[in-house]
């Protein structure tokens, strides 16, 4: 799962914000306030996102109306999975706080931590 490019991100953000399907023109209007864009540019981006499986589309009148396949949260979670899965090779780009442990190790270490927490007076 690849993260979006800059324009793709803006388009997806706009669609998630909107909450309902949008045509090319509607997306263009939404984005135009922040930057000048051509109709064909937005059309291409939406078509690409649809091709990549990120958007579904339905005919509304004579135009396609696009909406996201996944919610923003689902998308984020999916990207996160991908990022975490490949981070093992690149310890210098992403430094995890801790690596996974098997359940036996976790149990043993949890006992050790709890034992260290017990107040010293218990040793009397």
């Amino acid at each position, binding site marked *: 799962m690849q993260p979006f490019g800059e324009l793709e991100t803006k388009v997806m953000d706009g669609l998630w914000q909107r909450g309902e399907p949008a045509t090319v023109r509607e997306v263009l209007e939404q984005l135009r306030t922040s930057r000048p864009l051509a109709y064909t540019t937005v059309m291409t981006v939406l078509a690409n996102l649809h091709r990549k499986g990120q958007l579904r589309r339905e005919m509304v009148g004579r135009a396609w109306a696009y909406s996201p396949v996944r919610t923003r949260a689902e998308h984020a979670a999916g990207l*996160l999975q991908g990022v975490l899965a490949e981070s093992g090779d690149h310890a210098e780009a992403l430094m995890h706080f801790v690596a996974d442990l098997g359940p036996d*190790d*976790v149990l043993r270490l949890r006992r050790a931590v709890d034992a*260290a927490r017990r107040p010293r007076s218990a040793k009397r």
Partner: protein
Amino acid sequence: MIATTALLGLGAVLSVAAPHMSGAAWAGRAPRLAVLAWQTVSATAIAAMVLAGLTMLIPSTSLGGGLAEMFHACLSTLREAYGTPGQLPGVLLGLILAVALPLRVASSVAVAAIRGWRRRRSLRRFVASVAHRDADLGASIIEADASAAAFCVPGKGGTIVLTTAALRSLTAEELAGVLAHERAHLRGHHDLPVAAAHALARALPFSRLLGFAAAEITGLVELLADDAAAREVDRVSVASALVTLAGMRAPVATLPAAEGATAVRVARLLKPARPLHRLQSALGLLAGILALAGPLVIAGIPLVASIASGLCTVPQIAIG
């Protein structure tokens, strides 16, 4: 000849012996010194090989002439001091060690630096697009209930990232410990020694020494960050945070070594080892400096001897 052999021998001994020093007890007591030690051993081994190559090139190439002129030494004496039996293999091997080896290392480091920069940039973009910044915590939070993750993306504009699942499972002290640990990584630029060590290991993949050094340094910087966290929050809370997050089965790609390392980190936090005595640290640093100078000294002895003797061996000239 002797210098060349000694240098090759030094490189070989370091490559074979140093990996056995992995997990030495003193490393946990002085992780910073241990990182420096691994870096020193790696640099010394590589320097020994490069200098061995240079000594092989002195007798038969203009390198000898250049040195002779620079130091006003007799060229033929110099040639004899560094001479190896068998000219062609000497030059070939010399070129490999003195030219190809440094080029390989340099290009590997450059490629790793560029790739690392790109990867970090793409990670930062990803975080910026899916996370929201929590100014109080000084971290970016990703809405994800299924995977508990806590990590940092180092480098310029580095960020600490946590998922909501992680936030929910940590107590306030544990969370403070995690944040302090990641902040230590960012402040200390721990990604640099890790990246350098991995780049060297990729440059010379047959070298066990460089592979061990990369793995050890990666683990040691975690100890450094744990110590920093333990200075801000109590040690038991940091250890507790480790266990809590490690047990949440986040889909993280782990190396088997990393699992054992976690247990070591917890044990070390619960029962802190005495730090090294100041004298021991100073001696360690001194040893490192001497070690680095070693190959240069070995390579230079024949040169110095040639200059000092002032003698010039007359080359055999066929008469008649």
